[in-house]
């Protein structure tokens, strides 16, 4: 029976791996439907809790699959679910890079690199807007972000970890006072 659990985990997560364009947030509703309604592995409340934990932890938000696997089948389940969600897309990306990198010196490759750079910058701007909205912090969040941007631009060698911890403490203090 145990083998079946692992096979089901793989069959659930591998398709999502190829669908997760633009990062993890696009597949969260699909994963919720699959794990809560179809497989009945989790209650809706359990799913929301796991999602919150995955967002609070360091690393990509898609580590949600690790938690689901762990919840269902322990350590091995966690490994299987992580690999099933991260592996296929990683291999695809590797294949794309590998196939195009041998043509680095060609004119079309240079045009691609230079042409895709502004698109990448635009996507980063978009990503920061979306994270700002998701964080739910409003003006206050933007103010902390702007201040830390200014500090990092003014002092490029500042300790980022220290800066982040400071921001955490400032936010906690402001929350307690306000």
């Amino acid at each position, binding site marked *: 029976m145990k083998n079946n659990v692992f096979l089901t985990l793989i069959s659930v997560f591998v398709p999502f791996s190829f*669908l997760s*364009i*633009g*990062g*993890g947030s696009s597949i969260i509703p699909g994963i919720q439907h699959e794990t809560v309604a179809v497989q009945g592995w989790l209650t809706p409340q359990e799913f929301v809790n*796991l999602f*919150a*934990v995955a967002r*609070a*932890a*360091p*690393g*990509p*938000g898609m580590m949600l699959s*690790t*938690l689901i696997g762990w919840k269902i089948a322990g350590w091995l389940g*966690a490994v299987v679910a*992580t690999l099933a969600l*991260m592996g296929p*897309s*990683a291999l*695809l*990306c*590797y294949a*794309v*890079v590998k196939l195009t*990198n041998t043509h680095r010196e060609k004119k079309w490759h*240079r045009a691609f690199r*230079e*042409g*895709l*750079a*502004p*698109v*990448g*910058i*635009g*996507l*980063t*701007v*978009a*990503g*920061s*807007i*979306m*994270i700002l909205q998701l*964080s739910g*912090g409003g003006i206050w969040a*933007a103010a902390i*972000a702007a201040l830390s*941007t200014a500090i*990092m*631009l003014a002092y490029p060698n500042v300790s980022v970890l220290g*800066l982040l*911890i400071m*921001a955490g*403490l400032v*936010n*906690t203090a402001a*929350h307690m006072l306000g």
Partner: protein
Amino acid sequence: MPTGSGASSAYAMDSFDQLILSTIPTTVTGSIPSIPLSVMHCNAAPAPGFRATLPSAKKMLTAARRETPMDQDIGRQNEPIGLAGGHGFGQPTIAKLFFLCLRVGLISFGGGLTGWFYRELVILRGWVSEEDFYSSQAVAQMLPGPNIANLVICLGEQLCGSPGALACCTGIFIGPFFCVIALNFLFERFSGIDAIQVGTSGIAFAAIGLMWVICLRGIRRAMKFPPSLLVVAATAIAVGVFHWPLLPVVLSMGAISVGLAWRRISHEE
């Protein structure tokens, strides 16, 4: 920038280095079958000091080893613009990439991971040019999978080939894997402590600042070719404000932008 001032003395040291090196290979390379991971350079063209850092040649070559950073300065002058510094970090190796990814994976709260890598690889170490970083980012976001995993696969491949991609990919996941399980354990024990949640969201706010540093530097760079500023703005608004689906936006904006770049390159030639 310290690059210029170091260069002249680096050339002098370099010829000294070559002098020592010319006596080494016959005695060293034959006797040592493999190069240990920790000293293995993985750029396509290894620095002159490369083979000399084999273990048994240690004593003889401490001088050569000491000047490896200078060797890089020579190489770096041929690189595209935007390489700021990177003194004291040496050449990228598989082990360095792995531990860098492991460290960033472990301490990157709140989705600022791209910002971390920009800082570590482009600003501090100068291993990756700005342009390579931005274009890798576009590819990473266009393909399925966590953006950060795709990004480190792209950059790891460029820096150290397939083992580099594997090392980066493993490094970025292994820390969060254990963290997320540990955090879930703690969450089930102590759920509902407000201060912790407020603290982590503060960290997330500052991590947005990490992304803004990339944005500002990218926009400044795009200003050199004004049409690309329009591409930046259109992409950002379509995805970030209107929430249009990413794939069609990236494909259409990418096609326009690559077309513009093609025309510009043709014009230059």
